[in-house]
């Protein structure tokens, strides 16, 4: 059922009034709402996990890890740091503007719109909401219609646990999204695909609304030779988890494809096969250790990717789709053609192409010539390669010898660059994302130099030149008439 948005302008006006009343600016309000999120997650854990199972077939441990635990961690972190974030920062001033003081005062932006996506319906909704609340904004959330049970659960739980006069959930599909975007917000935070991202930004341009776009991209994992067999084992486990274990590859920071050398490929493939079975069992569909594909459209998109000539023949493991249950087997492809869609589009599913190159250093050029991904993963202990990757490639983030985990690091900004979006959040960055940093300067009347004012003459010019160079001795000399040129 789609809500009637005909009187949305009126509703928006009410929300604006709430914001103008200053209620959401109070530290106590922000705290109570963050605590509300914590108790929501704790008390409604069962319903949340159930909704995630219905929409996405997520195993409850996976669901807990990605959508409840991580969010609770962020909410706790925000609660612990809120006071520090909200306080103003002093800025240094040059002596020329003495006597005065300056500071940076963070202030909420106003009424913000958060559009979240279906793959992590709770995580990707609450993570930005935490930032928006911490920064003192009024929030409107539009969750994705493609995960209907989760969206419904979001609407119900938020209604029960949070202040509904200032935090609203609007359910609905594309149509509702379009209608929403015709209105003016003070910030739009969007998580999703590039094409809708363009649409959102175009709509935002009409009102000069700043946007944060959290998109995706093809995140490569570069796998170098790792000498220790223990390390190698862990690397393989991480890769399998980072590809198939996060919503069946339907994650913006999931591993999209592997780059390795021709030499290493066969060992790597053997290890991957072995550990896929260990991790998910011989029949993952039955024991529900891997999530399903969100809907038919995506499912047929994935099948199309596999059906392309040249791609099909490169499948070396899996590849069997189960249309009825929307379940796609973990699939490995060795060297599919680079001009095939599977190597051009973001895969967003449990298909893992392995690209082999002559030497591992070539991976840098390979990545460089493609659109900037949201994340790059490097499995290597070679420090030179690490340095080369950091300085020569561009991406939202780089993680060495692990995957996905940077999402949980509150101290690191999370966000894309180029094709993978712009703007960043998580931890303090979430707070900043929804704040305006206001420059405030306070002056006294005590000292006021006459040379700041017209009518202009040469002496004033010389005084100013020295003043602006912070050359105070010359300034005094000119002032006293002892020197004529700065």
């Amino acid at each position: 059922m789609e809500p009637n948005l005909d009187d949305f302008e009126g509703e928006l006006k009410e929300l604006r009034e709430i914001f103008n009343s200053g209620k959401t600016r109070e530290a106590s309000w922000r705290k109570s709402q963050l605590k509300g999120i914590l108790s929501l997650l704790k008390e409604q854990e069962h319903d949340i996990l159930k909704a995630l199972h219905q929409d996405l077939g997520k195993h409850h441990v996976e669901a807990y890890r990605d959508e409840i635990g991580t969010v609770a961690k962020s909410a706790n972190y925000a609660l612990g740091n809120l006071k520090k974030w909200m306080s103003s920062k002093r800025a240094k001033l040059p002596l020329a503007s003495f006597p005065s003081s300056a500071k940076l005062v963070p202030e909420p932006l106003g009424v913000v719109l958060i559009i979240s996506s279906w793959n992590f319906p709770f995580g990707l909704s609450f993570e930005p909401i935490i930032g928006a609340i911490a920064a003192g904004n009024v929030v409107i959330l539009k969750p994705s219609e493609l995960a209907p049970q989760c969206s419904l659960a979001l609407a119900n739980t938020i209604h029960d646990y949070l202040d509904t006069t200032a935090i609203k959930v609007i359910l609905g599909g594309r149509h509702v999204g379009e209608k929403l975007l015709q209105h003016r917000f003070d910030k739009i935070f969007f998580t999703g695909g590039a094409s809708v991202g363009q649409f959102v930004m175009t709509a935002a341009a009409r009102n000069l609304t700043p946007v944060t776009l959290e998109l995706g991209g093809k995140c490569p994992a570069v796998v170098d030779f790792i000498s220790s067999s223990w390390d190698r084992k862990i690397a393989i486990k991480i890769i399998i988890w980072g590809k198939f274990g996060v919503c069946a590859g339907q994650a913006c920071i999931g591993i999209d494809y592997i780059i390795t050398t021709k030499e290493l490929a066969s060992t790597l493939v053997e290890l991957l096969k072995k550990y896929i079975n260990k991790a998910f069992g011989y029949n993952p569909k039955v024991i529900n250790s891997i999530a399903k594909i969100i809907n038919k459209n995506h499912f047929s998109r994935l099948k199309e990717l596999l059906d392309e000539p040249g791609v099909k023949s490169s499948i070396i493991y899996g590849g069997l789709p189960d249309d009825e249950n929307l379940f796609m087997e973990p699939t490995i492809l060795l060297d599919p053609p680079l001009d095939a869609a599977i190597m051009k589009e973001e895969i967003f599913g449990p298909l893992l192409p392995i690209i082999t190159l002559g030497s591992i250093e070539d991976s840098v050029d390979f990545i460089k010539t493609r659109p900037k991904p949201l994340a790059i993963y490097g499995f290597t202990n070679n420090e030179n390669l690490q340095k080369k990757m950091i300085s020569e490639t561009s991406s939202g983030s780089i993680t060495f010898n692990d995957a996905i985990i940077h999402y949980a690091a509150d101290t690191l900004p999370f966000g894309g660059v180029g094709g993978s979006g712009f703007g960043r959040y998580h931890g303090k960055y979430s707070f900043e994302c929804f704040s305006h940093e206001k420059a405030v300067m306070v002056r006294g009347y005590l000292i006021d130099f006459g040379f700041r004012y017209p009518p202009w003459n040469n002496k004033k010019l010389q005084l100013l030149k020295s003043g602006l160079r912070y050359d105070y001795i010359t300034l005094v000399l000119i002032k006293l008439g002892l020197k004529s040129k700065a």
Partner: protein
Amino acid sequence: MEALSPLREGPDPNEAAMDVAGDLSKSMIKFYRRYPSITHRQHRSFSLQIHASLCRLMLTITMASEEQVKNSTAPAMFDTEAANCLMKELRSTFLAGKTKSYEWRSSQLKSLLKMLEDSDKQICDALFSDLSKPEMEAYIHEIAMIKSSCKLALKKLKDWMKPEKAKTNLGTFPSSAEIVPEPLGVVLIISAWNYPLLLSVDPVIGAIAAGNAVVLKPSELAPAMSSLLAKLLGKYLDNSAIKVVEGAVPETSALLEQKWDKIFYTGNGRVARVVMAAAAKNLTPVVLELGGKSPVLVDSNIDLTVTARRIVSGKWGCNNGQACVAPDYIITTKQYAPVLIDSLKHHLVKFFGEDPMNSPDMSKVGHSRHFARLKKLLDDDKISGKIIHGGQTDKSNLKIAPTIVLDAPEDSLIMSEEIFGPLLPIVTVEKIEDGVEFINSRPKPLAAYLFTNTKQLKEEFVSNISAGGVVINDVTLHLMVDTLPFGGVGESGTGAYHGKFSFDAFSHKKAVLYRGFFGDAPARYPPYTPGKLRLLKALLDGSLFGIIRALFGFS
């Protein structure tokens, strides 16, 4: 910053500009309705449609201002093909990694500094020819400002470029993390005519410091400075990575069709909407430095002389009101207004003489279109009889006398749009606190100023008024402080620059996380068990005790 960039120069460009976004949204909606499940290929054809409609609208604007273009003296036409070539060249320079090195960045900044030192005479002449800007103003507000920001960048560059260490938490232990600044790529800077040197070169400094390849499009409405910049930047800087494209609407449109890694625009809200809609096509982030009606709230318990001269110099002594941070209007109490007005008049005479129209210390109005707009504000019926000082105009020399308007109604033109000229309305309120409400009922300005000695009012002003920047007991001064971010909020723009903030505006902060293989928590990986869930809960809580309990199978 109400600096009229080219696109505005047409009989009806405003509406056309406003329509761009609307037209695009409509076609997008249509397209999505037709293809509810959009594929990659469909998306691509869709993108082409957007492109076409964007070009068409740009063309509309272009044709609307054809007359103006005919009169312009642009030497050679810069079209889409030329823009493609330009982009190709800059991209290859950037990809070769040349601009990333510290040596390149510092050498360019040094040459820029040398350029400023060698050419201050030429610069002052150009500013005089475009705007009759007094040498003193040219020096303080343009040359000295850039010099100091250039010097600051040179001094701090190494620090800015250093990766910043980030703490890591228990959940990711053992690991180390850092945030590495990296250049965005090829960036476009579109600047304005009112401070044609400052607003062009200041962002260029940030872009170079951050290691980007840059294209600067100076405003064609300050033609002398535009051609001087093209000449000087061509002579002093590395042309394989830094280019100047001169021109008006067609040139700007051709530039906007390209895929940039950042667009930095200084100007007005109307053009900003076109720029942002064009940027949306390529998902390019934008910085928009706009303007707005920056208010000055004047309390009665102040040092009147200092207040008056600070306001007068901020309004008429900064390019004659044609500055984005210039005080736009004053709010004071009914009671205090006459005292304040007397003092303002007194200082006007003191600073600019009895005949301000001929004062060498005052800039002229930027150009004839702009003059006509200001004249219209003055001729508005709603303010007839309310002009209490000045009001004289001289069309042939583009001069308007410093003018004070008392109690202009809220719906008059002068109180509805950014003035950007030597007209100063004074709004009177019963109590000074009402001023805060007055400001809050309007779009967020770029700057808000307050003169008072009351601590409480200061606090209320700072915490309740949303503006790009706030200055207490002075005007415009925050612009000169490089430790403060300079930029707007809401209608006054997005993004900030100056000092380190300029570097940040043109950098991407890349998160880098290093992990060892030691100490890996198997709880993260499938197969999932109840024990793993307990461990995970403990890990994410960050409680060491819980982790130990979970590891030993308690709880």
